[in-house]
């Protein structure tokens, strides 16, 4: 048998062992290879079903340009994986979350098992759970064990009392400000506005954020809304829509007033990259963005303001309140259509990713804001990434976006109406009233 045939045989063997191809398909292909049907059959018997043989799992992650996921997978395969006869294959993800979602929905609608472990954006678990596309992790991960992890991401992965995904890393909205022009960050949005107006001539713009009509807008809006004490949906009763109240109106009015005054008109076309471009060119006093921007803004090859900025918590609505960052982040879930054996093996991998070793590697090498709370006090991590010390209090105050089994529709509605208000097509009052009506139709259909 030459190498190519050997390779083909290996492929179908591993495919059959991992349960990806049926016995019938295996036999068909083995006979294609030139084996007689009897020898193919005996090969089949020798390999057995799922009881023995290595389990090869596929992990589809989000985009990771640092290859840290590759390293972690490798580490798992050579240690825990080898011990338990599990091998994990890491699949690099597309950079657009929409493209990743396309892959997931196509696969899961077809009840496909070509992906075993999924990396889910923090807003997907409830929806995927509602479709029975992922399986609950409560039997694998006890509430006791979960205590050491950040609570906000766990809250985002909980739906109807069960936990559907294990938070691996999170993301928080931060306020970036020019420390060469300001000594301390503003405590309220009003203060931010005033400072920006005064100092704006020294940069070009006062405050840049993400105002385009996309998911990021929901993050920005949620942050301002939560900082005024408001909420989109009642956390205790997700069918109760609370966005159209005095606090909501105050929040939206604040945002609308920024456009064209302390923020450029084009802020309604900005996503993360565009707002970062403005800030790191030195043209903005304040920026709202995720932690990834820290390293880039400190890199003299890309930024005009290295070491001339600081990060802080987002401002609050009024003097008594606190700012609440929205969390982003990625969570590991298990495909619901897997047999028991494979699901268990998948959990082994997830458990490894949640372990202190793996979380530390992720924090050190990729600057991931991981979910194990102790990492934020770890000496090695703090030496390499001192800003992690700042994150802890911010993480404790962070809040997720509304958790809903219909999150996609909810998000689309929020995006649409908030965007119209930002473009001055409707007043904030009208926008919120329309939003409430549409959310009602989505969440409480007649």
């Amino acid at each position, binding site marked *: 048998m030459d190498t190519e045939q050997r390779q083909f045989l290996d492929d179908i063997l591993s495919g059959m062992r991992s349960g990806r191809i049926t016995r019938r398909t295996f036999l068909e292909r083995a006979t294609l290879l030139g084996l007689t049907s009897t020898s193919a059959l005996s090969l089949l018997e020798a390999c057995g079903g799922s009881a023995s043989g290595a389990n090869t799992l596929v992990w589809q992650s989000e985009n990771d340009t640092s290859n840290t996921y590759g390293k972690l997978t490798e580490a798992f395969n050579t240690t825990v994986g080898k011990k338990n006869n599990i091998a994990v294959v890491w699949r690099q993800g597309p950079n657009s979350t929409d493209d990743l979602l396309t892959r997931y929905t196509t696969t899961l609608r077809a009840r496909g098992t070509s992906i075993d472990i999924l990396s889910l954006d923090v807003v997907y678990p409830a*929806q995927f759970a509602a479709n029975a596309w992922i399986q609950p992790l409560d039997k694998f991960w006890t509430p006791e064990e979960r205590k050491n992890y950040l609570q906000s991401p766990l809250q985002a992965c909980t739906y109807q009392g069960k936990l559907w995904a294990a938070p691996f890393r999170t993301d928080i909205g931060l306020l970036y400000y020019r420390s060469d022009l300001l000594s301390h960050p503003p405590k309220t949005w009003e203060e931010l506005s005033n400072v920006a107006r005064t100092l704006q001539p020294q940069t070009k713009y006062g405050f840049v954020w993400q105002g385009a009509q*996309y998911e990021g807008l929901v993050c920005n809006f949620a942050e301002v809304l939560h900082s005024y004490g408001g909420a989109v949906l009642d956390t205790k009763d997700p069918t109760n829509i609370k966005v159209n109240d005095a606090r909501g109106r105050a929040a939206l009015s604040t945002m609308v007033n920024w456009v064209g005054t302390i923020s450029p*008109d*084009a802020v309604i076309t900005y996503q993360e990259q*565009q707002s970062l471009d403005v800030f790191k060119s030195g*043209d903005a006093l304040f920026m709202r963005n995720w932690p990834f921007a820290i390293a880039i803004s400190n890199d003299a090859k890309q930024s005009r303001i290295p070491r001339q900025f600081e990060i802080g918590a987002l401002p609050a609505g009024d003097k008594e309140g606190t700012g609440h960052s929205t969390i982003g982040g990625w969570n590991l879930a298990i495909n619901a259509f897997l047999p028991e054996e494979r699901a268990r093996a998948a959990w082994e991998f997830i458990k490894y990713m949640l372990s202190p070793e793996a979380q530390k590697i992720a924090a050190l090498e990729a600057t991931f804001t991981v979910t194990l709370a102790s990492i934020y006090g770890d000496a090695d991590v703090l030496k390499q990434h001192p800003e992690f010390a700042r994150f802890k209090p911010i993480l404790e105050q962070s809040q997720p976006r509304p958790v809903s089994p219909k999150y*996609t529709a909810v998000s*689309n509605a929020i*995006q649409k109406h908030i965007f119209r208000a930002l473009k001055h097509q409707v007043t904030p009052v009208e926008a919120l009233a329309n939003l409430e009506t549409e959310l009602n139709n989505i969440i409480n259909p007649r």
Partner: protein
Amino acid sequence: MTTFTARPPQEKKLSLFDRIRLQGGFLPYALVLPTILLILIIAIYPMLDSIRLSFLDNPLLEHPAFIWFRNYTASLRDDVFQQAFLTTIIFMIGSVTLESIIGLGIALLINKTFPGRGLVRAAILVPWAFPTVVSAQMWLLMYNDQTGIMTYILRFLHLLGPSDSLIGSYWGVIAACLITDVWKTTPFMALLLLAGLQVIPAELYEAADVDGASRWQRFWRITLPMLKGAFLIALLFRALDAIRVFDIFYVFGQRSVPSLATFASQKLLSPIGSDFSQGVAVSVVIFLLGVIISLIFLSFMREGTRQQR
């Protein structure tokens, strides 16, 4: 083609087999079969399945209910759908018109020999060969309000405010999409029309020269009619592509200025089952729009062949 001057006295009913044999035998079917088989399995089946899916409320359920046209009426009532529909029609008319005029001009221009002609043909192929995923991002960079070259050109021409971006307004997005699409797709038209020009027999022009025809007469009387077949097909395919426009609206218009296809895909990739079936319904609407456009074009083409006889 011979014509019977009188009917044969006994009108024998021809069997299907005889009729087939008279019209070229089974060879045409053999030639056509592989293509049709492929199209049936890969395209027609999903299309029909989509029509079926569009009549359901939630395809993810075990026993989804048939709600017939409710998905369609819900879409028609949705103001975002209405805007997407209008946007797509405007875009289609704009892009097809601009691309055919400019494409025809380019084809006529490079149909004559001149030094460097080969290089020009290669140059105009560049926009079309440029990978779509990247060209959309590059143009986005050019429209960037801070660093974009197009923004600076537009500000220089006083068409844009100091902190604004072309893609910040509805008509700006349409303009941006048209500019990028015309840049990208005109070579497609030009190439097809050029091929059409190249098979026009030279004798026709020589005969016209002998008759003393002017350049305009040559163009109007010979070139255009001879080009009609290729031109209409190029237009038809361009129009069908235009109603399915996705990439540029996805990057420039995003959620705020959707085209029919970006609106459909937004619903289609939603995990929510009822959104999915609505997305399928919108896809079927695009299909129906395509059918209407095809029928219109086909009537023009048939007119053409009727004239030729």
